[in-house]
């Protein structure tokens, strides 16, 4: 199922890596090659993932957990194998039932906020967030706060939008904080909050910690066991897997104490006319038919990630960030959002260019075959803080090259001319 050659790969041969991604050999339009710099929105899919999904759909498209026939048994084994791979990747391979499959990070955080919050939060309890968060790690907390009477508190950010641990500490003075939810990498600026320190300090003060790893997991591993975090969420499609599947990791003791949010098939052991008995983990939180082929594809994506040389990927991505800061920074009117220090961030470059609306930039860059994202990136509080309605974002993956960044810089120069007031 998994790409065996991926496991054997040692260094980071970018041209060979690119050959793993069929989309990269396509032209956007005749004569215009694709320069895909929108990886924070979704990553491209390697052949190994596409094949794993295709194989499931073609060869064993059966439901899981219930059928007693060969196809269902094969699907169940592959589905549970994917869960086991996710668990190992997160450092909890000894208890894969702590891995709940969801539709994505958003559903995962909603599940944690609702199911944990309902059994835990009392009026006046505090949830600590920061303006770095994606809406998916803000709105579910707003909703559970409104339901329980809890309140939200925001950690200050520095001028370069970095997480301020002093302000973090101050939120604990009154002993009200029950939960700290933080991204491991901002989807707008690439800022990496110090999750290890955040987790340690929160734990010392009796607060729970949720890590939104949606952006970080494509670039760096997340070991929830050694970090000692309580929850973690990520999406398959941002780590080279399919859309429609994501994961909530939760500590067993917490998951067991939580009530399910969705009721239906599979999440029950027994149903009577007026009551039901919940199933064991992880099924308790997986009502209905899960995203089977997608989860199997996610398993293949994890294999693919593990087949890459993590150090080589990190070195390559660091070089890409440095190059992006330099080459794009040389374009007059370019304003980088977030840290100027390439070592303080992941490979995400949020920016504005003069007064041009980012949407116009994105559309014009498409003429050059360059895919970026423009908008508020589901981070309106961060944009409000910056005083801008929207920004442009180039986000990089291991298959990107410095040459692609040079093309972006050149295209931005051309666009300045195209948008010039005449």
């Amino acid at each position, binding site marked *: 199922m998994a790409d065996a050659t991926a496991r054997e790969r040692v260094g980071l041969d970018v041209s060979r890596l690119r050959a793993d991604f069929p989309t990269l050999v396509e032209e956007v339009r005749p004569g215009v090659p694709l320069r895909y710099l929108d990886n924070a929105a979704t990553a491209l899919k390697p052949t190994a993932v596409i094949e794993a999904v295709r194989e499931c759909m073609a060869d064993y498209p059966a439901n899981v957990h219930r059928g007693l026939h060969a196809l269902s048994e094969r699907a169940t084994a592959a589905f549970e194998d994917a869960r086991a791979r996710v668990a190992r990747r997160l450092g909890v391979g000894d208890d894969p039932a702590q891995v709940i499959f969801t539709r994505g990070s958003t559903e995962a955080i909603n599940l944690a906020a609702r199911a944990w919050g309902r059994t835990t939060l009392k009026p006046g309890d505090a949830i600590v967030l920061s303006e770095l968060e994606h809406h998916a790690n803000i709105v579910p907390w707003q909703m559970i706060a409104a339901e329980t009477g809890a309140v939200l508190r925001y950690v200050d950010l520095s001028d370069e939008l970095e997480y301020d641990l002093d302000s973090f500490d101050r939120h604990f003075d009154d002993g009200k904080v029950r939960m700290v939810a933080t991204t491991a990498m901002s989807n707008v600026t690439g800022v990496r909050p110090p999750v290890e320190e955040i987790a340690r300090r929160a734990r010392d003060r009796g607060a729970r910690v949720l890590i939104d790893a949606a952006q970080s997991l494509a670039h760096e591993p997340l070991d929830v066991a050694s970090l000692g975090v309580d929850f973690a969420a990520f999406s398959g499609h941002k780590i080279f897997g399919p859309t429609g599947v994501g994961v909530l990791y939760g500590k067993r003791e917490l998951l067991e104490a939580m009530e399910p949010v969705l009721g239906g098939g599979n999440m029950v052991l027994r149903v009577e006319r007026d009551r039901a008995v919940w199933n064991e983990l992880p099924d308790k939180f997986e009502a209905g038919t899960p995203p089977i082929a997608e989860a199997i594809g996610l398993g293949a994506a994890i294999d693919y990630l593990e087949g890459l040389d993590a150090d080589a990927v990190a070195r390559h991505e660091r070089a890409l960030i440095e190059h992006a800061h330099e080459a794009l920074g040389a374009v007059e009117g370019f304003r980088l959002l977030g840290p100027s220090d390439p070592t303080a961030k992941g490979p995400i470059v949020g920016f504005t260019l003069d007064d041009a*609306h*980012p*949407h*116009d930039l994105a*559309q*014009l860059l498409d*003429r050059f075959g360059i895919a970026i994202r*423009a*908008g*508020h990136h589901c981070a309106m509080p961060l*944009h409000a803080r910056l005083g*801008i*309605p*929207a920004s442009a974002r180039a986000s990089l993956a291991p298959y990107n090259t410095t040459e692609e960044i040079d093309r972006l810089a050149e295209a931005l120069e*051309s666009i300045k001319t*195209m*948008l010039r*007031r*005449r």
Partner: protein
Amino acid sequence: MEDPFYREEILDHYYSSEHRGRLERPDHVCDLDNPFCGDQIHVELAVEGERVVEMRFDGKGCVISQAAASLLADRIEGATVEETLKLGPDDVLAMLGIPLTPNRMKCGLLGLRAVRQALTARSAAT
């Protein structure tokens, strides 16, 4: 590189629309956001009898959202309220003279939506 989207006429409407600004005494106003890309528009209309006599708009947004609002103002000044309310997406596309992708339609239609909401609200908001 030439781009029909960003041709001179459209950029003129974007940078120096004669309809940008405020009215002294608007009869109808509306503020709308386009959450997709962060466009914001503020529309003011003066209506005499059955006719729209003046439209002014203000806002921050992409070239398409702002130019489309300006083109719309050209079109509806002098038109009846009834005619204005009959305008639809195809009319906006015809004014812009370019096809829009589904995502970009939200930008192109922001001004029209604001005008419709302004006219269908009870009276001038304050």
